[in-house]
């Protein structure tokens, strides 16, 4: 099975910022990503849980993006602009993908 090198970027960000991040990614020509729910967590700004909020603004989501290595930097810059002043974590790791023609 042929595998191709790629980068996996995972961004944990407030749900309320999701649409802005989506737009920024699309603006940077990122062709694919997925959004996963986050139930709760803990960080410098204290700990939280999805059930502890009457408001939709309280939760976070994780945006996962598999991307060709050469596109990484442009993507990170676009994402960073959105994450910048907000709480959130951005991680990058190496991975391999099947069906690279799809990216």
């Amino acid at each position, binding site marked *: 099975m042929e595998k191709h090198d790629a980068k996996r970027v995972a961004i944990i960000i*407030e749900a*309320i*910022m999701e*649409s*802005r991040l989506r737009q920024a990614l699309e603006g940077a020509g990122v062709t694919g990503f997925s959004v996963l729910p986050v139930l709760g967590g803990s960080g410098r*700004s*204290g*700990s939280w*849980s*999805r*059930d*502890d*909020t*009457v*408001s*939709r*603004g*309280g939760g976070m989501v994780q945006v996962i993006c598999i991307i060709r290595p050469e596109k990484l930097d442009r993507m990170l810059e676009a994402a960073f602009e959105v994450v910048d*002043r*907000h*709480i959130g974590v951005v991680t990058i790791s190496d991975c391999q993908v099947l069906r690279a023609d799809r990216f």
Partner: protein
Amino acid sequence: MQDVLSLAAQNLLSPIVLFFVLGVGAALARSDLTIPEAVAKGISLYLLFAIGFKGGVAVSNNGIDLTLGMTLMAGVILSFVLPFIAFGLLRWISQLSRTDAAAVAGHYGSISIVTFVAATSVLQSSGIVAEGYMVAVAAAMEAPAIFSALLLVSSGGKGRMDGALIREILLNGSIVLLVGSFFIGWITGAEGMAKIEALIVSPFQGVLCLFLLDMGLVAGRGLKQGRAVLRPGPLVFGMLMPVIGSCLGLAFALIIGLSLGGAVLLMVLAASASYIAVPAAMRVALPEANPSVYLTLSLGVTFPFNLTLGIPLYLAMASAVHGG
């Protein structure tokens, strides 16, 4: 005074207040009781749907009043002005930073729809009717305060407001559902009401109990996390500001000539603080402000204050002053 106390006592022993207390108690005792997020959202959609529709039907039944436009305007003015008062008060009696104070102030201009609903049901059990269009006033008061909050920090270069955010604020789901249901109730009138009455009228109080249980759980957990915030200054603010707001609301109501019920509801709107729309907007536009400050104050202090003591107090105030 006697009267306020007996009204307050009666209110304190109503199922909705007791379920709120149960929720707070369960949270403070660290019970794992929780209402799943989807269920809580479903209930809040139900409440907005029901009160919007009922308001619209009331307008359709009683016709439009000349006061409608004036009350809407009064609501917008209150929502816009109250944050400046709140900001001044906060800077005076608390050590909050400009940013935090502005964020908190924005919450107090806006409104809490559940406080409004709770007041409606107190009015109902006292047999007092109110203008049906007050739910439209509630909707109109959600947003202006957000702009005031951002004005308050704009000198510091903080606070980001863009087109996307304005659209999000004005078209947020709660407002759309509330106003949409209001218009549909207005259009379909008594006939429409006959069709969906069994869902939105009789079970309403019971559903409200479950929702207040959830609010109690959330408020209780918030209080535990945010106790650091509760220094005397902010605490006093959280109980004084609603009373100030209610006085302003009463003044407007008297000028406009609202009914007793309408006056109480306008007071409650002015007195209540947002914990849904405004926090969300603040996270986008003013992420530097500390959410635990504004959430603890609005949901942990002012909401319970209004629910238990505030509503009977405002009713007593209005009764004392109102011509009839």
